């Protein structure tokens, strides 16, 4: 999945000394992928279909389940969008501006990603929770969920846009200026098109991460059914109340949304590459 964000390196014909990886390498790779990814996915799929397709549909269309899925998708999409704007801005500042402490800021970008998500939740709770020192009380509101998800997904767009922005041809910008283009026109017509694949990739990763996020939301979000409860919390609750089939069904639904988005982005980026 991570490969999505990275612009494809130029095709390189590489001849390794020992030739191909051979059947053992291939076997190990397949086995590992199967154990780690494919078999568990198959298991959860089977579980979700225990009650047949009808059971699956009932499980995900239960009011709380449906609400949680819709809320999660909508908020994740919103968060991805926020990231596209702020992430581009941050990447721009990091690449184009020079200021004291730039390397520190650059390092801090990864912090939300590296932080254990439950810690992120506590961090946000202590600032925006019931005993907020700044008087902003967001506990158990939708903005709190958005905030938590924006926090943990911050690095994705920044890190995918940054290297592309560094490679942007400065002379093309100067050429645009000499042709009469204002700074904004140059950004919109010359720079932004070069960033599209990276923006899409970064947004896709942020979305995929947000859709399954649990730890950072669990404390500050409040988990109120049909209000702030996201899909992962709903799944956890189903497990706790011993309804594994329902949990599996919602999980599969999440998986499908996630896949659909990633494939759509992949298709779109590929099409852009050709053009």
């Amino acid at each position, binding site marked *: 999945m991570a490969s999505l964000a990275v612009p494809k390196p130029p095709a390189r014909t590489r001849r390794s000394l020992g030739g191909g990886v051979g059947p053992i390498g291939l076997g190990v790779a397949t086995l590992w992928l199967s154990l780690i990814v494919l078999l568990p996915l198959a298991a959860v799929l089977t579980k979700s279909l225990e009650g047949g397709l009808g059971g699956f549909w009932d499980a995900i269309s239960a009011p709380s389940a449906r609400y949680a899925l819709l809320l999660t998708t909508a908020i994740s999409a919103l968060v991805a969008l926020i990231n596209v704007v702020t992430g581009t801005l941050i990447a721009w500042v990091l690449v184009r501006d020079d200021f004291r402490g730039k390397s520190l800021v650059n390092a801090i970008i990864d912090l939300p990603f590296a932080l254990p998500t439950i810690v992120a939740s506590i961090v946000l709770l202590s600032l925006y929770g019931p005993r907020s020192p700044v008087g902003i009380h967001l506990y158990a509101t939708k903005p709190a969920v958005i905030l938590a998800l924006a926090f943990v997904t911050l690095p994705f767009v920044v890190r995918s846009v940054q290297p592309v922005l560094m490679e942007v*041809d400065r*002379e093309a910008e*100067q*050429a645009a200026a*000499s042709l009469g283009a204002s700074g904004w026109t140059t950004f919109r017509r010359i720079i932004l098109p070069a960033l599209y694949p990276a923006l899409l990739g970064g947004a896709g990763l942020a979305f995929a991460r947000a859709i399954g996020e649990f730890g950072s939301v669990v404390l500050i979000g409040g988990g109120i059914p049909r209000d702030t409860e996201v899909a992962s919390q709903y799944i956890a609750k189903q497990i706790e109340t011993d309804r594994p089939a329902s949990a599996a069904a919602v999980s599969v639904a999440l998986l499908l949304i996630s896949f659909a988005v990633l494939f759509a982005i992949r298709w779109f980026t590929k099409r852009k590459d050709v*053009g």
Partner: protein
Amino acid sequence: MITVTNVSKRFGDFTALDDVSLEVPDGSLTALLGPSGSGKSTLLRIIGGLEFADSGSVVIHGEDVTGVVPQKRGIGFVFQHYAAFKHMTVHDNVGFGLKIRKTPKERIDERVNELLKIVGLGGFAKRYPSQLSGGQRQRMALARALAVEPRVLLLDEPFGALDAKVRAELREWLRRLHEEVHVTTLLVTHDQEEALSIADNIAVMDNAHIEQVGGPRELYDRPANSFVMGFLGPVAQVDDTLVRPHDISLLSRPEGDAREAQVTRVSHLGFEVRVELQLGDGQPVFAQLTRTEAAQLELSAGDIVWLALTGDRDARLVSEDDRLDAVA
């Protein structure tokens, strides 16, 4: 006309331009010629508004543009590495300047097609820059710069990234284009052959200064100093006289004040024959002969010949310093 007056520019401790003044005549094709680091690109970028001078002024067609942004200077700028808009077709690249001026679409199409025909990219409108060769990309960049009908055209080492054959073709082509379009053009190059072959006016730069301005013949035949002489062509030194190697003739017997020399090596370079010699005092010299001249002398290493200076006296210089060693 472009008039640059007393322009200085520093980058930190490095002085790129030191009190430089230059006039580029209307309709001329002027070359800024100099080694890398001589300040020629900086001067061009200051004229184009991509850099700003620390002091001095730039006037384009009577308008002081010293502090004016590039968007408002009415210039066309062409870069060494094409600066193509990669995600746009050739048509959209060329039409970019017109499009942001909100020119009607039909007018853009008309102008773009006309320009693409002029630069010889008639059938390439729908291609992307990545589908063009280097030479084609640069011609596209030129069409793009010309599309907005600039008052002056500024070219920064436009053929520097191309291989020798394409470079020579494009040089010729640019010369012809200039005769057709006649826009005042300033071209930066470090290649003296390029400057001599296409420019009608050359400013030789070195070390943040302009050393000499003049026509190609004037610079070659009447160099102001040893730097200009050495940069424009090969130089041989006989005692303390600097002379073009083709102004040395070799005689098979002593005559007048001809100097005795021994041939150390003869290289046949097609039409030209390069003869390396050693004077009596051990000083090495080389001479350029035509095939015919060399054939008559039947030279080979070890031969003793007599060396006389021919050609225009004004084309010679008396060696004044050791700068020549750096460029020879």
